[in-house]
C-alpha cells in the first residue's frame, strides 16, 4: 500500500494506448483510453444485444420480465419525447433512449467497489483501469458533440433562411444584431460543454469520493460507503435523465422557429 496521494493518483490514471506506435502509454492527442473505450464498447454491445433480443422476442399478449423492463424504459422515453418534441424526425426518440440507457449503465459501474476491477486486472499485469467511462471527458464529449452537430443540422435543415433572421433579431431586435449574434453563438457553443462537463463532473466527483472512502480503515468503510452508494444511485439516474432530457429540449429548440 502506497501513500494516499499515490493511491488517488493511481486510481485517476487511464489505461492508455499510444496510437502512433501501439504501445501502452500516452501519445499526446493520438492516445486511446483503452479502459473507457473497452467498457463503453462492452456496455454498448450489452444494450444492443439485450434490447435486440427483446425486440425479436416481442410478445403483445404476455410480456416477460425483461420485455417489461425494456418496455418501461421505451415507454418513458417515448412519452418524454412526445411531450417536448413536436418535429417529425424519427431519430430523436431512439437517440434519447440510447443516451439514457448507455449513460445509465456506464454510470452504474460507479457502484462497483473502486478497487475490485483494478486489483483483478493488476494480477494480469494491467496497471491502471478506470471502469467508469462517463468519468472520462472523452466519453461525455463524444455524446455532447454528437448532440451539438445534430442541433446545428436541424437548425439549418428545418429553419433554412429563417435561421439567419432568428440569429440576427432575437432576443434584442434588429438594431442590436451584433449582440444577438454573439449571444446566439455563445448559447449554442455552451450547450455541448454544459452537457459533457455536468455528467463528467458528477461522475468524476462520485468516483473520487468512493476512492477517498476506500482509504478509510476497513472496519469503518461500510457506513460512509453505504450512504454514498445509496445517494449515488440517485445521481446515476438523475444524470442519465438530465442528459437525455436536455438533448430532447435542445433538439426541439432547434426545430421551433421563434
Amino acid at each position, binding site marked *: 500500500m502506497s501513500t494516499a496521494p499515490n493511491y488517488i493518483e493511481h486510481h485517476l490514471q487511464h489505461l*492508455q494506448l499510444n*496510437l502512433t506506435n501501439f504501445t501502452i502509454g500516452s501519445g*499526446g*492527442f*493520438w*492516445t*486511446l*483510453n483503452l479502459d*473507457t*473505450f473497452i467498457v*463503453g*464498447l462492452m456496455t*454498448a454491445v450489452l*444494450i*444492443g444485444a439485450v*434490447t*435486440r433480443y*427483446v*425486440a*425479436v422476442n*416481442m*410478445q*403483445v*399478449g404476455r410480456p416477460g420480465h425483461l420485455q417489461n423492463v*425494456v*418496455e418501461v424504459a*421505451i*415507454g418513458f422515453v*417515448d412519452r418524454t419525447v412526445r411531450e417536448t418534441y413536436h418535429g417529425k424526425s*424519427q*431519430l430523436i*426518440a*431512439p*437517440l434519447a*433512449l*440510447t443516451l439514457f440507457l*448507455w449513460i445509465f449503465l456506464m454510470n452504474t459501474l460507479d457502484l462497483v467497489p473502486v478497487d475490485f476491477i483494478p486489483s483483478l486486472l493488476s494480477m494480469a499485469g494491467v496497471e491502471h483501469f478506470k471502469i467508469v*467511462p462517463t468519468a*472520462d*471527458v*472523452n*466519453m461525455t*464529449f*463524444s*455524446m455532447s*458533440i*454528437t448532440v451539438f452537430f445534430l442541433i446545428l443540422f436541424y437548425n439549418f435543415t428545418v429553419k433554412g433562411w429563417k435561421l439567419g433572421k432568428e440569429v440576427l433579431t432575437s432576443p434584442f431586435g434588429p438594431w442590436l444584431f451584433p449582440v444577438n449574434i454573439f449571444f446566439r453563438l455563445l448559447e449554442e457553443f455552451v450547450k455541448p460543454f454544459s452537457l459533457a462537463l455536468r455528467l*463528467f463532473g458528477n461522475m*468524476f466527483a462520485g468516483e473520487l469520493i468512493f476512492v477517498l472512502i476506500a482509504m478509510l480503515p476497513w472496519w469503518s468503510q461500510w457506513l460512509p460507503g453505504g450512504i454514498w452508494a445509496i445517494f449515488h444511485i440517485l445521481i446515476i439516474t438523475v444524470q442519465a435523465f438530465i442528459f437525455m432530457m436536455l438533448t430532447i429540449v435542445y433538439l426541439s429548440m432547434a426545430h421551433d422557429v421563434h
Partner: protein
Amino acid sequence: MEINATLIGQLITFAILVWFIMKYVWPPITKAMQEREKVIAAGLEAAERAKHELDAAQHKALSIIHDAKRDATHVIESAHKRSAQILEDAKETAREEGERIIALAKDEIGREVIQAKTVLRKQLSELAVQGAEKIIKHNLDASLQKTLLDEFVAEL
C-alpha cells in the same frame, strides 16, 4: 482530464449504437406496444358492448317472463271457467237423463198394471164361470145363466 483520440472512438461507438437502436430495436418494440394498446382498447370496447348486450338481454328476459305470467293467468282463468261450464253441462245432462229414465219406468209400470188388470179380469171371469157352472149344474139352465154372467163381466 485530457481530450484525446478516445473521443473519436467513442463517437463511432455512439453513432453505431444509436443507428442500431433506431433501426433494429425501436421500431419493433414501439410497434408491438402500439399493437397491445389497440388490443386493450378493443378488449375494453368489447367488454362495454357485452355489458350493454347483457343489460338488453336481461330486460328482454324480464319482459318475456312478465308476458308468460300474464298468459298463464289467462289460461288458468279460462280453464276455471271452462271446468265450471263442463260441470254445469254435465249436471244438466244428468238431470235430463234421469227424467227420461223416470218417464220410461212410469210408462213400463203403467203398461204392466194394464196387463195385470187384463189377466186378472180373465182369470176372474173364468173363476166366475166355473163357479156359475157348478151352481147351474145344481139347478138352473146353463145357457140362461151364461147370458147373465156375460152381461155381468161386461160391466166389470
